[in-house]
C-alpha cells in the first residue's frame, strides 16, 4: 500500500524533543477534558510536558468513558465477589474486549452489552447504527463469529414532540446496521418514560461463538512482529469536540471542520467480519484489537501494554480519508469499521492475500519491540514516547463522594393509596394498551430474526435462543432486563431484581444460566446522590450474582446521562446468558394449545 498523506501535511509537528525544550508552552488540556491534577500527573509521568500527540492520547484514554475513573472502585466488587465455582466456566473475564464462557464440547461464547446513548440523541440513526457496529467489533476481536444482537432501549414520553425523531431513527439505525451484518436480533426492550427525554438509552448487546482454541486477545507480543491497521480509512470522525488539536502547534487556531457524528458503513463491517474470521481460521494474526472510542490511541496503548514489550509505529502510514488531519487527531479519531492486528513476519504475505480477496485496505504501521515503550513517529520524528501502561491502565482513579439522597425516604413512603377499581377488566385493558405493555412487534418486525438459520427463539419470547452446534443442538439463551423505576426507589434491590428477571427469563426458556454482562446507565458521577445510586446498584448486582452463582464477565458504564441537572433513573441493564445441551428443548412463552393446565409457581 502506498501512502500519500505524509507529503500533504504542512503543520508544525510537536516532537518529543520540542516538548522537552519548550516546557513553558501553553497546552489546551482543560479543553480536552483533563483536570489540573490529571495534567500534572501526565507531566510527572513523562518528566516533561506532553507533546500535542501525547496530550491527545492521555486525554482520551483518561476520559471517564475509557478509563472508568469514577466507577472502577465500585466495579471491583464484580471480581471480589466471585467464588471459584462461579469461575468454573469462565475462559476470559472482565478486562478484555468481552468475556468468554465455556459452554462445553470445545465451544465457547463471548457476549457483551454496551451503550451508545449520547451519539444516538444527537443523530439517532447513525448513533444507534454505530452502536451495533462497535459492540460487534468487540465480539470479533475475541476471535468469535458474531451470531446475534439484542437492543435494550429507553425513550422519553411517547407523546413528546422529540420522541418520534428518536424512536424511528434509533430503531431503523439498529435494524439498518444489524440486518446488513446478517445478525439475527433476538430480543431487547422498549420502555417509554419521560426521565429519558433528553437521554434516550441505546444499549446494544452482541454475542459470538468460537472454539476454545480460537480465543484471541488484545496483546502485542513477539519482538519484530508487525502491526497493521485494516478496514476503513481514518477520518475526522468523533473528534469534533477536540478540535483544539486542529492546530498542532497551538498558535494558529485555524477553524477545523471535523464531523461530530460518525456515519456507519455496515457493508464494510460485514466484510471485516468475514475477513477476520478467515484470518483466525488460518492463524494469521497473533493479537487483535478493534478500534472504538479513542481509536488508534486505545488500540496501540492497549495492545502494547498487554504484551510484554513495546511498540514502534509510524503514524504517516495510516491511510486517511481526510488528508488535513493532524497527528493528534489521527490518534483520537473514532472512525468506524477499523481493526488493528499483530502479525508475524512469516504471515505477512498470507495476511495481504486475505485483504486482497476481500478488497479491504490496510497499512503496516510498525512493529513490536522490546523497549517497553510505545513510540509513535511522524515522518521519522518521534511525537510520542510513553510507557503504554500509563496511558491504557494507570489512569486516574477517583473515590468520588456519595451519599443517600434525602428525598428517598419521602419517595419510598409515597406508596399506592388509591382504591382498587371496580371494573378490573377495564383496568387490564388500560394497562395493556400503555406503550410499555403493548406489543413491540412494530419494532421487532423491522429486525431480521431468521438470518443464519439458528434462531430457535426470538420475539415475543422471554429469552432469545440461538443454536451454536448444528450437529448436537448445543445452544445459548439470552435475556436483557432492567427496571429504572425500581432502581430509583431502591438502587440496590432494583439491580438485584434486574438480574433476577433476566435470570428467570433465561431459566424459563429451559437454559442453565451461566454468565452476566451489564450496562450501567446513570447520571453524573460528580453528583454524590447519583454516585450513591451507582455504588448501591453495583453492590446489589454483585451480591445477587454471588447468590445465584453467575459471574459478571464484562460490560460497560455510561455516566453523565442527565439534562439540565436532572439525571435519568438509575438504569443498570443486565444481560444473562444460559446454555442448552439441545435447543430443541427450549420452551417458548405463552400458551400453545387448548386444554393445557396453568400453574403459578413461586411466592
Amino acid at each position, binding site marked *: 500500500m502506498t501512502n500519500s498523506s505524509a507529503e500533504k501535511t504542512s503543520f508544525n509537528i510537536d516532537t518529543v524533543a520540542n516538548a522537552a525544550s519548550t516546557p513553558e508552552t501553553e497546552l489546551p488540556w482543560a479543553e480536552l477534558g483533563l483536570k489540573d491534577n490529571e495534567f500534572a500527573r501526565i507531566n510527572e509521568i513523562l518528566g516533561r510536558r506532553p507533546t500535542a500527540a501525547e496530550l491527545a492520547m492521555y486525554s482520551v484514554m483518561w476520559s471517564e468513558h475509557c478509563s472508568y475513573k469514577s466507577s472502577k472502585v465500585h466495579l471491583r466488587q464484580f471480581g471480589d465477589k466471585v467464588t471459584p465455582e462461579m469461575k468454573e466456566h469462565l475462559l476470559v473475564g472482565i478486562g478484555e474486549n468481552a468475556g468468554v464462557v465455556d459452554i462445553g464440547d470445545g465451544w465457547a461464547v463471548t457476549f457483551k452489552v454496551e451503550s451508545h446513548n449520547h451519539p444516538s440523541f444527537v443523530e439517532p440513526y447513525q448513533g444507534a447504527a454505530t452502536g451495533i457496529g462497535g459492540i460487534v467489533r468487540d465480539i470479533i476481536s475475541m476471535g468469535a463469529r458474531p451470531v446475534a444482537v439484542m437492543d435494550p432501549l429507553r425513550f422519553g414520553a411517547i407523546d413528546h414532540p422529540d420522541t418520534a425523531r428518536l424512536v424511528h431513527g434509533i430503531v*431503523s439505525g439498529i*435494524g*439498518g446496521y444489524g*440486518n*446488513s*451484518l*446478517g445478525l439475527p436480533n433476538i430480543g431487547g426492550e422498549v420502555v417509554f418514560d419521560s426521565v429519558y427525554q433528553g437521554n434516550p438509552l441505546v444499549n446494544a448487546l452482541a454475542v459470538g461463538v468460537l472454539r476454545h482454541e480460537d480465543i484471541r486477545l488484545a496483546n502485542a507480543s513477539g519482538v519484530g512482529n508487525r502491526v497493521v491497521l485494516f478496514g476503513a480509512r481514518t477520518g475526522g470522525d468523533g473528534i469534533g469536540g477536540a478540535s483544539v488539536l486542529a492546530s498542532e502547534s497551538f498558535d494558529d487556531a485555524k477553524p477545523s471542520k471535523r464531523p461530530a457524528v460518525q456515519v456507519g*458503513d*455496515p*457493508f*464494510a463491517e*460485514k*466484510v471485516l467480519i*468475514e475477513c477476520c474470521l478467515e484470518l483466525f481460521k488460518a492463524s494469521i494474526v497473533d493479537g487483535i484489537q478493534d478500534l472504538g472510542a479513542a481509536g488508534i490511541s486505545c488500540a496501540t496503548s492497549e495492545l502494547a501494554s498487554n504484551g510484554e514489550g513495546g511498540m514502534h509505529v509510524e503514524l504517516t502510514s495510516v491511510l486517511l480519508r481526510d488528508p488535513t488531519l493532524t497527528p493528534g487527531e489521527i490518534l483520537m479519531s473514532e472512525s468506524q469499521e477499523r481493526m488493528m492486528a499483530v502479525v508475524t513476519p512469516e504471515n505477512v504475505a498470507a495476511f495481504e492475500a486475505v485483504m486482497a*480477496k*476481500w*478488497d479491504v485496505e490496510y497499512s503496516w504501521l510498525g512493529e513490536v519491540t522490546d523497549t517497553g515503550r510505545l513510540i509513535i513517529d511522524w515522518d521519522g520524528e518521534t511525537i510520542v514516547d510513553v510507557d503504554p501502561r500509563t496511558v491504557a491502565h494507570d489512569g486516574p482513579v477517583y473515590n468520588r463522594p456519595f451519599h443517600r439522597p434525602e428525598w428517598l425516604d419521602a419517595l419510598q413512603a409515597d406508596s399506592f393509596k388509591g382504591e382498587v377499581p371496580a371494573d378490573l377488566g377495564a383496568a387490564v385493558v388500560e394497562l395493556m394498551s400503555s406503550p410499555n405493555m403493548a406489543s413491540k412487534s412494530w419494532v*421487532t*418486525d*423491522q*429486525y*431480521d*430474526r*431468521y*438470518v*443464519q*438459520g*439458528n*434462531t*430457535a427463539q426470538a420475539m415475543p419470547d422471554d429469552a432469545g435462543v440461538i*443454536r451454536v452446534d*448444528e450437529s448436537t443442538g448445543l445452544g445459548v439463551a439470552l435475556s436483557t432486563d432492567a427496571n429504572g423505576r425500581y432502581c430509583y426507589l431502591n438502587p440496590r434491590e432494583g439491580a438485584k431484581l434486574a438480574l433476577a428477571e433476566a435470570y428467570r427469563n433465561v431459566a424459563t426458556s429451559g437454559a442453565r444460566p451461566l454468565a452476566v454482562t451489564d450496562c450501567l446507565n446513570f447520571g453524573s458521577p460528580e453528583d454524590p446522590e447519583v454516585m450513591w445510586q451507582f455504588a448501591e446498584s453495583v453492590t446489589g448486582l454483585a451480591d445477587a450474582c454471588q447468590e445465584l452463582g453467575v459471574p459478571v464477565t464484562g460490560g460497560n458504564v455510561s455516566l453523565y446521562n442527565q439534562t439540565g441537572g436532572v439525571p435519568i433513573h438509575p438504569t443498570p441493564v443486565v444481560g444473562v446468558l444460559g446454555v442448552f445441551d439441545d*435447543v*430443541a428443548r427450549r420452551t*417458548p412463552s405463552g400458551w400453545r394449545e387448548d386444554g393445557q393446565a396453568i400453574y403459578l409457581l413461586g411466592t
Partner: protein
Amino acid sequence: MTELITDLSADLSSADLSSARVGVITFPGTLDDRDAARAVRFSGATAVELWHADAELKDVDAVVIPGGFSYGDYLRAGAISRFAPLMAKVIDAANSEAKLPVLGICNGFQILTESHLLPGSMVKNDHLKFICRDQVLRVENTATAWTSAFDAGQEITVPLKNQDGQYIADEKTLDALEAEGRVVFRYVGFNPNGSRRDIAGIANAAGNVVGLMPHPEHAVETGFGPDHTGTDGLGFFSSVLHTILSGARA
C-alpha cells in the same frame, strides 16, 4: 435434525442425490449463503461454494443466488453485484441450451433483475421500512425448475425480510408475465411491500430462472422456520433436485 426429503422415486440412493451439485454464490455482503447451502444439503444434494470473483461455475447443476446486502445494497440493491465476473457465467449458462436452473432469493432476485435475466425491478417497500414476517405465498406455477414439488395453487409459508422488496414493472410487462404464466408466487392475505399485482416471485420464459423476495432457505428445518415448525421452503430444493436428476441435463 430434519430427515432427507425428496419426492423422487424411491430407488434413488442418497449417493445419487448427492451427485447433484448446487452452487451457492457469495458476494461481499451476502448474508444467507450458509443458510442456502444448508437447505441444499437437506434436500440431499451437494452444496458447492462459489465466490463472486471466480472464473468458473465448477460444474454445478444449478445455482442459488442467496439473500443479503451485497455491496451494502448501496446505489441500488444488486446493482454492483450484477457486474461480478461469475455473474457473466451465470447469465450465459442460464440462457444456454442447457438452461442452468438459477434461483435468486431476495437480494439474489434483485441481482437477477439488475442482470436482466428477469424483467422488472425492485424499489423501496411502500411503507419505507424493513419488514420481517412469516409470509403466506400461493404457488401459481409448478412447471418451473424450482417449483415442481408443489401443487398448483398450494399455499406455503416462508419468512420474508427486506427493505427494497416492492416489485415493479410496466403494465405491458406485467400483462405479459401473467399471460405467460410467469408469475410464480403471489402474496396471500397481506402484501408486505406494495408489489404490483401481489407478485412475490417470477420466472423467465424457459422456467429455469426463478426469483422471489421471500426466503425459502429459512423454512427448511423444524424449530427454526416460521412459527417454529414450518418447512415449506424445502420444496424449492427438492424441485431442483428433481429437475437435475430427471435428466434435464443428462
